[in-house]
């Protein structure tokens, strides 16, 4: 034969070699597999043959040799292949067998993004998943799946390598293999009372067959503040304040001579070069019997405000050992050590008057260099000095967290088709903090004296420590069988959890009459027994503790006939220590069905349509929710604060914290969905669509009438909407491939009923939850303009809201009773977007790649809860206030400059359009040529540049259009913290 020998290598799009890929000469049985390094050799091949390379999870590639004897094949991952295996609750399943909605995200998608918390990087990537990010260092995003379905807890359940957790901020994104987002009844019912808010399953890396790799990667970057609100400078402040005092008939401000500064407080407290650095080492080694994966990470990150720093070390270890063909054991550990940041806020920097210099300079040495106090009349008592807080007092605390989340399992296969798996999990979370209250001198210009900041006369040390231990055990029996064309995959199991928490804290102050003086400002002394500075009579201690448990039975069956007709059923019974014994257990279930139309013979030739699945599911799930701090709703405790005093005797009196309710149960969420999964044009184009409908019943409510409190089940909330996901990928040439895609989610939220139809107000904001409106809607007056004259006032309905004059808001008489009264308040905004969306474009050209992510929301309102002035102090003005009404016809929107609460009632004046569109992430990368690297014994070298939050088109006047919050009060912009623009450079080496 005149055959030639062809050598080649097979790599994935990231340049990683693919060992074990099948390489076959098309139309023959000649073939081989790639070795550990992804290389293959084929002998006796005709020079015009076509070779076909296939690998599970990748699109099969066909390569014409065209006389070449050396080929390099890059395999495209196929996230939609029929054989895709996804992680589901208590096991894995082939995606084609499922009737529910599960979105898989590869670990790589979050690993190379700058966010410490992996869920932050999912923003805009998954339909149905709303992530509202915060710029605060170490802050937790507000995450909701398919709307807001409860009053207290809407955050999803996280399952990390099998253990239930409330968050995943302890997982290094670099250690993640995959993230699965579960959204519908069929996928979630197996999680019972924890399932209703959706589940995010995180699986950390495990070594794959035959793999031995070492990866080192590092990134360095900077954060930059953006979208700073326009606030008055000193000149404008004086102009506006003078006008205001004149309007009020008050004397002019008499201290301009001592307050001659012009300070941009936001700039003053900002860290201009906030750094972010990560270093990760990971190692995977798999032999025939043993699979080991090890990851070590270090991260340091600074916040936007000066002196905010977080340091984190993470550890991930996963080892599985096959004792025999049918018996396996394994261990997983995720460990973390955090040095937690002292975070601040920009609120007071926005409020502080610019006319003050941050620092006082003086010829008297003891006065020189002190921080200046703001004028007593303009925020002195309320704000003090934002720079002092950012640079001094905020930093007197040390907080550390250690967390170890681990598990061991043993699994045995028996009787051919059965597998029994027992797992034991532990989550140990230790938090420690020490802090110091200093005495900080501050210069008071009006009186030319030195005062103690905040009036603080005593130094004090606080120390606290807490441990949470979460113990979980799972026992699962699974059975798989194929009876001809009937395929069955079942699991039954028992699981229990026990969560124990104890925290202790204490404080001690110095003795002002002692000769040894104050507690030194040195962390060596920041302990409760500080001697001889601490005054033992001031030492107080406290503790906080709870213990709660659940015990559950679960079962699931996945059935299909010929991969055409699918049926899924799940059941779970959850019992909890938190409810009354007679009412302790609740049942949850789901049923799902699907039809893969393209498997039908009569659908064989459908032109461009390659795959069509029609699916639907329904079920009843639970939401185990209680407002923070309540652990024993069945055993209401007594309030320790209810202490009676008689003379100097302190007698612990108590009042019941709330009325007990033996009938209390968890919330039930009834949900159903209908969906389509389609692929077109040889799987290059995909389009998935779902309609979801979730109705929360028996809302668990903490009723506080202002005078009495108790828990009850009452009220209903509905969330429904559509989800669309689409993608298109193609190769324009061997060198150039691209993919584009996107997702859109609509959310239609409505509160169907509340307890006795009473509205629920969130304290201090305009948020109101009431029957017939979206949850947390903003509630207030409609501003129809400004009263231009007394004649204008006389011609319009009288207002009973307070005194008003020309230049004040003209509130609308909504109920038309001829008077402006509190009854004229109405719904003035909805914090839930009409839809949220994400888009991506990925381009690969030779060794370069470019990934662009876009994301946005549309149709929601944001309540501006900053820059509206204050009843108790004069704050700085938004620049917009320069247009304040100052005579007939001067403005019909900005009220006069006047310190009255009349214009501060929640109204449409504070409502801003929350829609935005953001260039969420831009990543440009270069992979060095595989062939060159081989000589250096390096598998891969990759360089990348990443830009996050590059630009946001928005309509709000605050830092960020995103404002998370509680389920009943969100979308309220309190001016706190901007979302930074983060630019990083990364290097990754794989050996």
């Amino acid at each position, binding site marked *: 034969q005149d055959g030639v020998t062809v050598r080649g290598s097979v790599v994935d799009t990231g340049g990683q070699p693919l060992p074990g890929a099948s390489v076959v000469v098309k139309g023959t049985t000649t073939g081989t597999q790639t070795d550990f390094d992804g290389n293959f050799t084929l002998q006796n091949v005709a020079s015009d043959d076509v070779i076909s390379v296939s690998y599970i999870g990748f699109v099969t590639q066909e390569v014409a040799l065209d006389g070449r004897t050396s080929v390099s094949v890059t395999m495209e991952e196929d996230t939609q292949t029929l054989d895709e295996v996804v992680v589901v609750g208590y096991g894995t399943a082939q995606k084609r067998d499922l009737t529910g909605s599960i979105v898989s995200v590869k670990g790589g998608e979050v690993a190379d993004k700058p966010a410490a918390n992996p869920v932050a990087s999912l923003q805009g990537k998954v339909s149905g998943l709303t992530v509202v990010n915060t710029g605060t260092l170490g802050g937790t995003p507000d995450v909701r799946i398919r709307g807001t379905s409860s009053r207290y807890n809407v955050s999803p359940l996280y399952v990390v390598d099998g253990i239930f957790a409330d968050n995943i901020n302890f997982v290094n994104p670099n250690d993640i293999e995959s993230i699965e987002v579960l959204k519908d009844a069929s996928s979630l019912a197996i999680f019972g009372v924890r399932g209703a808010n959706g589940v995010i399953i995180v699986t950390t890396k495990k070594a794959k067959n035959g793999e031995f790799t070492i990866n080192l990667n590092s990134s360095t970057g900077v954060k930059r503040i953006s979208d700073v609100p326009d606030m008055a400078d000193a000149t404008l402040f004086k102009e506006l304040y003078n006008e205001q005092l004149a309007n009020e008939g008050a004397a002019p401000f008499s201290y301009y001579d001592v307050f001659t500064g012009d300070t941009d407080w936001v700039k003053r407290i900002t860290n201009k070069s906030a750094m972010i650095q990560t270093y990760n080492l990971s190692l995977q080694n798999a032999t025939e019997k043993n699979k080991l994966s090890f990851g070590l990470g270090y991260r340091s990150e600074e916040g936007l405000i000066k002196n905010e720093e977080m340091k984190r070390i993470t550890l991930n270890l996963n080892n599985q050992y096959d004792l025999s063909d049918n018996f396996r054991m394994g261990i997983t550990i995720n460990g973390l050590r955090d040095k937690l940041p002292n975070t601040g806020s920009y609120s007071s920097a926005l409020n502080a008057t610019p006319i003050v210099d941050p620092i006082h300079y003086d010829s008297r040495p003891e006065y020189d260099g002190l921080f200046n106090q703001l004028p*007593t009349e303009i925020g002195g008592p309320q704000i003090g000095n934002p720079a002092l807080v950012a640079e001094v007092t905020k930093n007197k605390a040390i907080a550390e967290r250690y967390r170890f989340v681990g598990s061991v399992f043993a699994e045995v296969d028996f009787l051919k088709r059965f597998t029994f798996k027992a797992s034991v999990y532990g989550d140990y979370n230790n938090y420690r903090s020490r802090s110091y209250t200093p005495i900080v001198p501050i210069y008071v210009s009006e009186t030319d004296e030195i005062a103690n900041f905040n009036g603080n*006369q*005593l130094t004090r040390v606080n120390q606290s420590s807490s441990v949470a231990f979460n113990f979980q055990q799972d026992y699962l029996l699974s059975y798989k069988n194929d009876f001809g064309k009937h395929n069955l995959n079942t699991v039954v199991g028992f699981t229990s959890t026990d969560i124990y928490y104890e925290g202790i804290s204490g404080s001690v102050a110095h003795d002002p009459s002692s000769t040894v003086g104050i507690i030194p400002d040195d962390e060596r002394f920041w302990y409760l027994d500080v001697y001889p500075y601490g005054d033992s009579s001031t030492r107080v201690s406290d503790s906080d503790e709870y213990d709660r448990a659940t015990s559950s039975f679960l079962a699931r069956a996945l059935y299909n006939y010929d991969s055409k007709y699918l049926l899924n059923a799940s059941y779970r019974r959850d*019992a909890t220590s938190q409810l009354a014994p007679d009412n302790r257990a609740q049942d949850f279930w789901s049923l799902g069905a699907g039809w893969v139309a393209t498997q039908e013979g009569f659908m064989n030739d459908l032109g461009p349509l390659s795959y069509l699945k029609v699916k639907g599911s329904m079920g009843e799930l639970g939401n185990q929710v209680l407002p923070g701090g309540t652990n024993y709703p069945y*055993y209401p405790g007594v309030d320790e604060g209810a202490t009676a005093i008689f003379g100097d005797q302190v007698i612990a009196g108590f009042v019941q914290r709330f009325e007990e309710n033996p009938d209390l149960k968890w919330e039930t969420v009834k949900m159903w969905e209908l969906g389509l999964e389609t692929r077109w044009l040889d799987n290059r184009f995909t389009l998935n669509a779902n309609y979801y409908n979730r109705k929360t019943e028996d809302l668990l409510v903490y009723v506080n009438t202002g005078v009495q409190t108790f828990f009850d089940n009452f009220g209903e909330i509905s969330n429904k909407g559509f989800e669309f996901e689409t993608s298109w990928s193609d190769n324009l040439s061997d060198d150039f491939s691209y993919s584009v895609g996107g997702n859109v989610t609509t959310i239609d939220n409505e509160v169907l009923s509340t307890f006795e139809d009473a509205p629920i107000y969130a304290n201090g904001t305009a948020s109101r939850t009431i029957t017939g409106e979206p949850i947390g809607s903003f509630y207030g007056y409609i501003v129809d303009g400004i009263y231009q004259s007394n004649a204008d006032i006389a011609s319009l309905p009288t207002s009973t809201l307070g005194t008003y004059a020309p230049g004040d808001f003209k509130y609308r008489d909504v109920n038309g009773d001829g008077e402006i009264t509190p009854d004229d308040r109405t719904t003035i905004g909805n914090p839930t977007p009409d839809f949220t969306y994400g888009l991506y474009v990925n381009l690969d050209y030779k060794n370069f790649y470019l990934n662009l992510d876009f994301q946005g929301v549309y149709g929601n309102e944001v309540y501006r809860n900053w820059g509206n002035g204050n009843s108790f102090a004069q704050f700085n003005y938004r620049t917009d206030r320069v247009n304040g009404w100052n005579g007939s016809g001067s403005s019909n929107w900005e009220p006069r400059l006047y310190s009255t609460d009349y214009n501060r009632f929640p109204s449409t004046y504070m409502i801003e359009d929350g829609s935005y569109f953001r260039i969420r992430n831009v990543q440009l990368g270069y992979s060095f040529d595989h062939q060159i690297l081989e000589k250096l014994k390096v598998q891969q070298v990759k360089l990348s540049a990443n830009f996050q939050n590059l630009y946001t088109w928005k309509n709000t006047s605050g830092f960020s259009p995103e404002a998370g919050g509680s389920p009943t009060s969100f979308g309220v912009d309190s001016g706190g913290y901007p979302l930074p623009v983060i630019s990083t450079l990364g290097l990754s080496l794989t050996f």
Partner: protein
Amino acid sequence: CDDDLLDKLPLGEVATNEELGVGGQEAAVFGIYSKTRTTSVGGWSRLWFGSIRSDDAEKGSTASDAAANGNAFNDFQYVATNGLNTEWWNGHYEVIFACNEVINNIESQGLTDEGSLINDAEARAIRALMYFELRRDYGEVPIITATIDVPSDAFAPKSSVADVDQFIIDDLKIAEENLPLTWPGFPGRATSGFAKSLLGKLYLYQEDWNNAYDKLKEVIDSQVYALDPSLINLFEKGGNNGVESIFEIQQTITENGEQYANIYFVSQGVRGTGEWNLGWGFNVPTQDLVDAFEPGDLRKTNTILVSGEEDGGFGGGILPESPPLAQKYWNKKAYTMADMRQEYGVNGNRWENIKIFRYADVLLMAAEAGNESGAISSADVADLINQIRSRAGLPNTTASTRSELRDAIKQERRVELAMEESRFYDLVRWGDASEVLGGLGYLPKHALYPIPQEAIDQSGGVITQNSDY
């Protein structure tokens, strides 16, 4: 499943459905006392409603500070949605519901031991005080006697003032019967003297002069109370639960610095910087009040603290001038000894009790009731007034006719109880409010405050707004 795993009792605290190890309702009653100390009932709302509305006091602080509250109270631009108004209302009903719970538990458990009867009487006396204050500020209010199990239990239509008064009288009659005369072990706990004083005051508001005099006379005749000879001591920590005290909201700072106090005094402290940062500077005396004291009246220096002047033996030295201090006068009854501030390491006064009833008030009310009813001679009326004047270092009153005595009593009440949340209500009661306060914006409808919008909203309209609002 396995119930052992799921039987988790609360850690570190008793649950209310466990045996608490104390008899009767004693512990729950202590809880009621603590609730009277909350900011909403015992805090600065008292100042806005009781003092700042009068001609004796004004808002204070800086011009822009709490300007809206200033409008709402100082200038009679009442607002149903005002936060202080909502707190005041809710705070009172919260105490009332805690009282209901005790009273109803004792009844439903059929407790008749002496301790339980005293607990019942304490709850009734405090409940009566709450209803009295509500009735005085809002007029018609809902009478709720039920233990609150579901929110609808907390709402009822308003009752007429006469019905509210009768309800208060019924409670107080039981209370005066069962409460002890004194509490040697528990200074400041509710006594029969407190119940009788409140009952006498209610009769006075009803202009039921005979009953008022009889009841107040019983307090005087009990020989438990006397005027504190030292005016300085009276308004200091030393005066807490002193000879003149009939009922006070108890406050203290413990040795280890824990505060059991609300913002009542801190909100009135001198608003300065450094060592003169004693508080927020609200509720300051007017020039009108300063001028109301007769020459030589010792009470003047114990009522008015003046910027730029010596603090008068309190050890704090000379106050800064005004300006930079925003106010010329400050409420000295809220001022403290400098060494107390030093001792506690805290500038704001959180160790003095808040006076609800003191004996001087009882003497003046007795004088008024006696004078109006004619039950006692004008000399006896004058004698009651003179007891007060004598402590103030003033000569006996020259008034002798009923009308002269009436004016003398009005003057004496004003200066004796100045800044103590009595003046506004007295002016309304005497029918003098329009004349005295008219220049400040007062209209007859301002005798009653609008019911908080939140209470109306939450009741779903069961509670209706006062007719003039």
